[in-house]
């Protein structure tokens, strides 16, 4: 949040925004205030999908509650995991007796709280599976907590959401989620840091001629500074490691997510999308599906992430399946 953010009490921000969001989409979602979660207005008889995490990443996850995607989203405080009990309540609300897929971005707090909630739910006879999303190439390393989860979570939610609507069972969904995650990688760069609510300065400062490369979605530093350059150069710098990590070769088709980190303008994102199309075309790789917009944000951070997901006909078809949520509808 910038100085002069449009909010009341920062401690009430998440609760008030959840209320305002639900009131803005009454045909699609309902809010529960305490414990806080957002649930589909029209529950369906299928395996339920629940996701969540810290707030500040909107429209993730609340924007993706609805037919063909999530059944319930659980927002934590800004950049903090929801609590185990909050998640358990979400699981209870979501379950239709067919089990619940928990889509979890790989962060210590989320893993812990979703894991605990899953155990608590199991004790109540609710079956769950955790789909851990860890797509952020910037944090790939031998030991440590592993790659962070970022924008690929969107693909997991969309594609598994579609499969669930078609009657896939919990095991099939968990397997599908794992396949998507292993086929997807993301890299991000920031052209300006974000400012946490209540703070008066951004989490880091950049010189006019540099960008922060390999950032996550919590305002933390990336893996290094790079010279600022044209959209063409910066897009290539993001795309090449993804192509290499996924081993993508000529003739393959991908889904590309060009994601704004919060304060990035549509003209910029469309430019990056264009450069990505060009760059991949130069390697014989076609972007046959894409999502360009600010979907997984880090408050008011500037910059973008690029996610590539290797497509096969099944994934493409599930991606194309109808979806009807506040932030994604087709």
């Amino acid at each position, binding site marked *: 949040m910038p100085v002069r953010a449009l909010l009341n009490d920062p401690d009430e921000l998440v609760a008030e925004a959840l209320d305002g969001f639900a009131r803005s989409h009454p045909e699609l979602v309902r809010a529960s205030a305490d414990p806080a979660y957002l649930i589909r207005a029209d529950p369906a008889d299928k395996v339920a999908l629940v996701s969540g995490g810290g707030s500040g990443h909107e429209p993730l996850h609340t924007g993706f509650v609805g037919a063909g995607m999530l059944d319930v989203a659980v927002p934590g*405080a800004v950049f903090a*995991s929801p609590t*185990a009990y*909050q998640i358990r309540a979400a699981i209870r609300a979501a379950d239709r007796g067919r089990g619940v897929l928990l889509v979890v971005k790989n962060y*210590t*707090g989320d893993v*812990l709280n979703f894991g*605990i909630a899953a155990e*608590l739910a199991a004790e109540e006879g609710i079956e769950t599976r955790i789909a851990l999303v860890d797509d952020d190439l910037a944090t790939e390393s031998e030991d440590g907590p592993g790659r962070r989860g970022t924008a690929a979570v969107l693909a997991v939610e969309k594609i598994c959401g579609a499969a669930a609507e078609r009657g896939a069972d919990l095991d099939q969904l968990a397997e599908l989620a794992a396949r998507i995650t292993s086929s997807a990688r993301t890299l991000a760069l920031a052209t300006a840091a974000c400012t946490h609510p209540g703070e008066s300065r951004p989490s880091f400062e950049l010189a006019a001629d540099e960008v922060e490369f390999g950032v996550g979605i919590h305002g933390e530093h990336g893996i290094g500074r790079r010279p600022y350059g044209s959209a063409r150069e910066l897009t290539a710098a993001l795309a090449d490691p993804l192509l290499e990590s996924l081993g993508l070769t000529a003739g393959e088709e991908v889904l590309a997510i060009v994601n704004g980190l919060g304060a990035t303008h549509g003209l910029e994102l469309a430019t990056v999308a264009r450069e990505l199309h060009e760059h991949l075309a130069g390697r014989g790789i076609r972007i046959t599906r894409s999502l360009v917009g600010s979907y997984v944000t880090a408050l008011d951070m500037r910059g973008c992430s690029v996610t590539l997901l290797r497509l096969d006909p099944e994934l493409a078809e599930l991606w194309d399946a109808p979806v009807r949520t506040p932030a994604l509808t087709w």
Partner: protein
Amino acid sequence: MDAFDGAEVRAWIDRFIATVLDRTGELTELDRQAGDGDYGTNLRSALGRARVNLDGTADPAAVFTAVSEAFLNTGGTSGPLFGMWFREFAKAFTEPVSDATLATAAGNAAAVVQRLGKAEVGHKTMVDAMVPAAQALRAAAERNAGPDRALREAAAAARTGAESTEQLLARRGRASYVGEHARGVMDPGALTVAMFFAAANG
């Protein structure tokens, strides 16, 4: 005494809450030196909620359930881990609470935290106090020492465990990101566990 009752368990928890609330500044300072400095805040919000939950409760299981639920409604890394830790006490405690009950509860509780947090003794976490305390309770129960003596021995073991974290490098949690900076700083989670067992003894 072979066992103690709900009122005593409740008094123990009340003393624990009072001590911690009294020392949140100190605990936060430790987290600031080797973490993100929100430990005291996390704990205060959990214990505030615990006090509400506890209102009128004096059944041993219910007392620990109230505390557990408060922690499971709290953020941070410590919140859910303590929530699951206290939950095992709630599960094991049936009135009256014997040394065997204590040993079972603390053993299961340390195991749950270890499984969820993937920390071993020596990783500079709350586990460094939980495991020796559980071992002390087990040993005391095996020689039928009674709950009072068992808890005194557990408190000593937890205290030693907590103090041992001071010289360690952290391998889990945020403190593990700061490397050598964490050396010389006692782990606040372990210190809290020591406070818990110390509070058992009047």
